[in-house]
């Protein structure tokens, strides 16, 4: 599949006389293939929004290469902007205009037919409230308007930064359906979000960023598989057989953690070996379940941002590829 978005070695450094230097993006790479819904994940301050802003020409990069729809940006941005719909960070609109006026003015600036305004208002569920001023809208309604503004161009690539922010549960589900529908219609969607359950449900592939560098990427299944521990939960017909089973499995070289009513096994390549081994000892399995990892646990593991009791993690305290002890490490955070 051709790439609609490619980033190689993107760098952005903020320099402040008072606070020193901060590498917001430190050689970041990314690739999004056509027709996919691609999740873009990272802890707060990891560089997600900076990446999107840089890609869209709002921030000047200090190095690296970016292409959108096969064109080098920012140089070719004026020619590709018509095919890229985007919302970056929180939705911001002139509060005294109605949603219809807001979209109508954007349509005018972008030479989009005025009829498209009503189409997108219908699509995001704002049809009946389109005449009201934006300042009367809830955060969720503003978010819907932002998505509508991004969809107005009927873009080839849709970039959405936290589109589910402020949405009610029904709205989140609608947004999920909308993303899938858009992707099925051939639109590529780049979705930045912290709702990892949503990302896992919606996205075909993901990129995880931490402190300005990519820490994982690829199809969601592959990323999950790469970080799967091969753990298996085993229950037996009789709980009293658990000690015997533990002994047999340990002798076979499997790491076993005992629990009152089940065993947790790790380092199991094939679950079938477990059933065979236990059957040889006349122990019969009532449940054998490989433990699936979810995106949230992979994310927390990769970015090292899992909460630790008694500790207050600070922004910028996360994993960096090539960090301490790794080649090419450069420190992140203010004062680096």
């Amino acid at each position, binding site marked *: 599949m051709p790439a609609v978005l490619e980033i190689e070695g993107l760098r952005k450094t903020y320099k402040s006389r008072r606070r020193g230097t901060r590498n917001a993006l430190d050689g970041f790479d990314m690739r999004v293939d056509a027709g996919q819904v691609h999740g873009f994940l990272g802890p707060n301050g990891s560089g997600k929004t900076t990446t999107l*802003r840089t890609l*869209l*020409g*709002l*921030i*000047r990069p200090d190095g690296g290469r970016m292409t959108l729809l096969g064109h080098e940006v*920012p140089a070719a*941005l*004026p020619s590709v*902007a018509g095919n890229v719909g*985007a919302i*970056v960070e929180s*939705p*911001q*609109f*002139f*509060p*005294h*205009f109605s949603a219809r*006026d807001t979209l109508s*003015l*954007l349509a*005018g*600036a*972008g*030479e989009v037919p005025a009829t498209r305004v009503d189409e997108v208002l219908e699509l995001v569920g704002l049809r009946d409230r389109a005449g009201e001023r934006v300042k009367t809208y809830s955060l969720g309604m503003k978010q819907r308007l932002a998505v509508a*503004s991004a969809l107005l*161009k009927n873009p080839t690539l849709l970039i959405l930064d936290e589109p589910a922010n402020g949405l009610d549960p029904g709205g989140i589900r609608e947004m999920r359906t909308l993303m899938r529908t858009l992707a099925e219609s051939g639109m590529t969607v780049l979705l930045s979000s912290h709702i990892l359950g949503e990302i896992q449900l919606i996205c075909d592939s993901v990129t995880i960023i931490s402190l300005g560098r990519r820490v994982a990427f690829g199809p969601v299944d592959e990323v999950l598989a790469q970080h799967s521990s091969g753990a298996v939960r085993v229950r037996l017909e009789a709980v009293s057989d658990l000690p015997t089973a533990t002994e047999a499995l340990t002798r076979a070289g499997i790491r076993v953690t005992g629990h009152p009513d089940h065993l947790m096994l790790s380092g199991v390549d094939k679950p079938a070996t477990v059933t065979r081994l236990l059957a040889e000892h006349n122990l019969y399995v009532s449940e054998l379940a490989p433990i699936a990892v979810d995106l949230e646990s992979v994310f927390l593991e990769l970015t090292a941002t899992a909460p630790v009791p008694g500790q207050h993690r600070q922004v910028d305290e996360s994993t960096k590829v090539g960090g301490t002890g790794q080649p090419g490490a450069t420190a992140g955070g203010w004062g680096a």
Partner: protein
Amino acid sequence: MSLFRTELRRLTKRRFTRYMTLLGLLVLAAVVVGVFFTNHKIDAGQLAKAERQADQQYQEQVRWSEQERVNCEQAKTAGTPNDGRYPDDCSVITAPSRDQIEAEWFLPSTFNFRKTFDETLVPFAAILALVGFVIGASFVGAEWSTGGMMNLLLWRPKRLTVLLTKLAALLTGILAVTLPAAVLWFAGFWAVASFRGSTEKMTSGAWQSFALTGVRGVALVLVLTTIGFALASLGRHTAMALGGVVALMVVGQFGLGILLSMASVKFAEAWLLPTYALAWMTKKVTLQDWDACNATYSGECKPDTMDITWQQSSVLFSIGVVVILGAALWTMRRRDIT
């Protein structure tokens, strides 16, 4: 072109633009109405009455000076010590000549179009320039502060084109208000002069002079609109322009004025911007230094003078516009939009 039309639509859709324009036009209308009701048409009867009152005043002055001269001579003859009430030579106490007492003094205020209209163009330009400044600052400042500019740049990623198109739309909008307002201003005062004054002696030269002053007034409105726009764009907030101008006027102008006056600086007004705005409108402002005395052949003491011309003002305003707008464009091109 679509961007220009859209920006023009955005400008006219904004309530602030509408209210400020309405407010400015109402103030202008109030000035015309006020001038109308405070002036009167002078007929022959009123003129004759004023002449009689001037005659009467002249007679009173003659009687009074005659009386004073007699008193002076009596005091001199009696040897009363001169406490400074009378001059040494009593013959210098004379009545003013008849032509020094003008009948005009006894007439109600009347609007002479040829003599007075020029002066009315100064408040006209000042009011519309203020409206233009505030609308210009708000037009781009609100766009920056509400994120509208960022949204627009996602659609039209040519930054300078976007900013300059916005400015062009703004100036077009301001011009679209100023030109008809100027025509109505001329018409309004022509009506005032017709019903409450005089429209006599209006030669083509006088019309040309008024037209040129009007054009300079429109230019002043556009210059201040541009400066308001550029300042707000620089600070990415309407308040930047408004705060900047308040700071400039309060600290830079009133403060500077007081400081210069305390330091007895010669021609202190030459350091103040309103002097140049006035010189731009009236073609020339002559500053006077009353601390200097240049004696004339008649023994009169004349102050030093300094002329500020409209050409000097045009240089100052041109430099101001180039520097401020240039800075706004430069930062627009360079800055990260976050």
